[in-house]
């Protein structure tokens, strides 16, 4: 077994809003090993992006972090100084966001945006590149992201590129500084199916070649299935199940995972299943026990009182549900 790269434990994030406090993340725990491809799935508003922002320490101003242990190669990210954080973001971890149009600055050419990243990422590695070297490196990165005519791309503004090309530019930017971990937050969701397929295949090929770890966040279960080694399922701010990808799709254990998988319309037909009744709980007053209790078919008295912990339910398969013991 390869060594642990990222280890998150007891992560809690709350948000101060008008009218109270939203208790969003509730003891999130996850690990990413070196060279591992990890998926994080869950529906909108379940805290996937918040978890990643907490790891990168880019939470918005109204976030409160009552408890968190985030270790990257044994170092506590929560205790890092500003210069250490800068270093981490410049050479170790990078993130690709969902909407490439919002992630790129509309008033600067790709050249200006990419050059800065290349310059400082390399400075951190102790290499002070000349202008020409920066350009060469930028072109190499664009090529790596499978962009045709990289010279033309450099002289374009984001609006002159298509959605798929913009996302490839974002990938190139992330590659400049993601030497150990790449976080991809729904990288294909805002794109068309055929383009999303291209982007995901490209990402997979890149991380496998460069032997980087990746966390792929998605609400599209199929996209995750073909990509990652291990999957975490999130519901309402909690990790409810984790397993190796084939096991999770073959034998989901948590009632939420089962419901989620059943709700996806199948290409083979067979009609539309019933979905999951009810709605995601209010983060202002989340249920005391299991957060899924209000929508669960199998809810028992204990579920309302006590929070289930992650328990081992098989080889590398963990689930937070009282159906499988305490």
């Amino acid at each position, binding site marked *: 077994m390869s060594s642990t790269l990222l280890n998150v434990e007891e992560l809690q994030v709350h948000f101060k809003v008008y009218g109270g406090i939203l208790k969003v993340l509730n003891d999130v725990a996850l690990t990413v090993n070196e060279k591992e491809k990890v998926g994080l799935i869950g*529906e*909108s508003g379940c805290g996937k992006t918040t978890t990643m922002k907490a790891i990168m320490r880019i939470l918005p101003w109204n976030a409160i972090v009552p408890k968190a242990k985030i270790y990257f190669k044994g170092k506590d990210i929560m205790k890092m100084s500003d210069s250490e954080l800068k270093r981490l973001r410049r050479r170790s971890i990078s993130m690709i966001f969902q909407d490439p149009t919002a992630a790129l600055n509309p008033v600067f050419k790709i050249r200006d945006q990419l050059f800065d990243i290349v310059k400082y990422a390399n400075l951190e590695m102790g290499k002070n590149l000349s202008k020409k070297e920066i350009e060469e490196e930028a072109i190499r990165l664009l090529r790596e992201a499978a962009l045709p005519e990289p010279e033309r791309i450099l002289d374009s503004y984001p609006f002159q590129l*298509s959605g*798929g*090309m913009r996302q490839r530019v974002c990938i190139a930017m992330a590659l400049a500084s993601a030497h150990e971990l790449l976080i991809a937050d729904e990288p294909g969701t805002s794109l*068309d*199916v*055929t*383009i*999303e*397929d*291209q982007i*995901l*295949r490209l990402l997979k090929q890149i991380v496998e070649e460069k032997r980087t770890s990746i966390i792929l966040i998605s*609400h*599209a*279960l*199929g*996209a*995750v*299935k*073909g990509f990652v080694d291990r999957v975490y399922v999130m519901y309402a701010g909690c990790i409810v199940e984790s397993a190796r990808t084939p096991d999770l*799709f073959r034998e989901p254990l948590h009632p939420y995972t089962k*419901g*989620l*998988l059943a*709700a*996806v*319309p*199948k*290409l*083979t*037909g*067979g*009609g*539309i*299943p*019933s*979905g*999951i*009744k009810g*709605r*995601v709980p209010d983060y202002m007053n989340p249920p005391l026990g299991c957060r899924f209790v209000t929508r669960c078919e199998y809810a028992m008295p204990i579920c309302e009182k006590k929070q289930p912990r992650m328990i081992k339910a098989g080889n590398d398969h963990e689930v937070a549900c009282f159906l499988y013991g305490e």
Partner: protein
Amino acid sequence: MSSENILEVINLKKYFKVSKGIIKAVDDISFNVKYGETFGLVGESGSGKSTTGHIIVGLYAPTSGKILFEGRDISMGVERRPLALKKKIQMVFQDPATSLNPKRTVRQIIELPLKVHGICHGDTTQKVAELLQMVELPVEYMERYPTELGGGEKQMVAIARALAVNPSFIVLDEPTSALDVSIQAKIINMLMRVQKEFNLSYLFITHNLSLMRNVASRVAIMYLGKIVELASTEEFFYNPLHPYTKMLLSSIPVITDEEEAMKPKKIISTGEIPGALNVPPGCSFHPRCPERLEVCDKIEPCMLEIAPGHFVKCHLYNSARA
């Protein structure tokens, strides 16, 4: 014309003039929708599927071509459409957050079409309550504002508004693509139930082929303003002919092995979707097509009926070329 079709679209075109030229959003498409059926219109962004929907409800007047609704020509613009006709054709938009007025309560939203079409005079409480029950929402929601509802619930309100005037035809423009899968299932089931109850015909617009497989009886696929393949759902998924259809099918992420097995294998998606301003000559798919022939960038293929009810627009199936 046959009487089994509620809607016939014949050689419909819609061009938009922009500063850089002409965008052919919908370019010569023909199809028909039968009474009580769900006709699916699939395509990626910019393929013209929503424009087609908008023309049918009358938001745009077509550049040329004809639309027959129950045998009557309705290809005039919305301002010349009689009120009784507008009532019969309703629409549900993609994003319920923007299609509902945030300053109006659910009651006011649903009430408006009832008043415009003179269905209800005076107290509308009873009728609004009935409509809310029909879409499986609690009656207490009547006095709430859209912002107080979840995404799925907002879409239910939008559907209730469309159903308020007893339409016979509804254009559903990606009704669930802004929603999560667990909520999508609920909405689709509700739509299918009311369709049976009131014998509605749907034009279902989506980019989600897996969803299409489960709701539509016939499917047409659009690429850059043109329909490239049209077939019954079974035919379409088990015997796709057009290379674009195959590419699209093989790009869909799926979750079970059975689904994986039915996907066409060899076609890997390449290239970008060209902009609507510079549509490639000949067959507009040829720059991305893995089975391109010499003729493809010169002559546009015509629609051929390969099997009964299965149409495809591709030179590969043109027997004259052999």
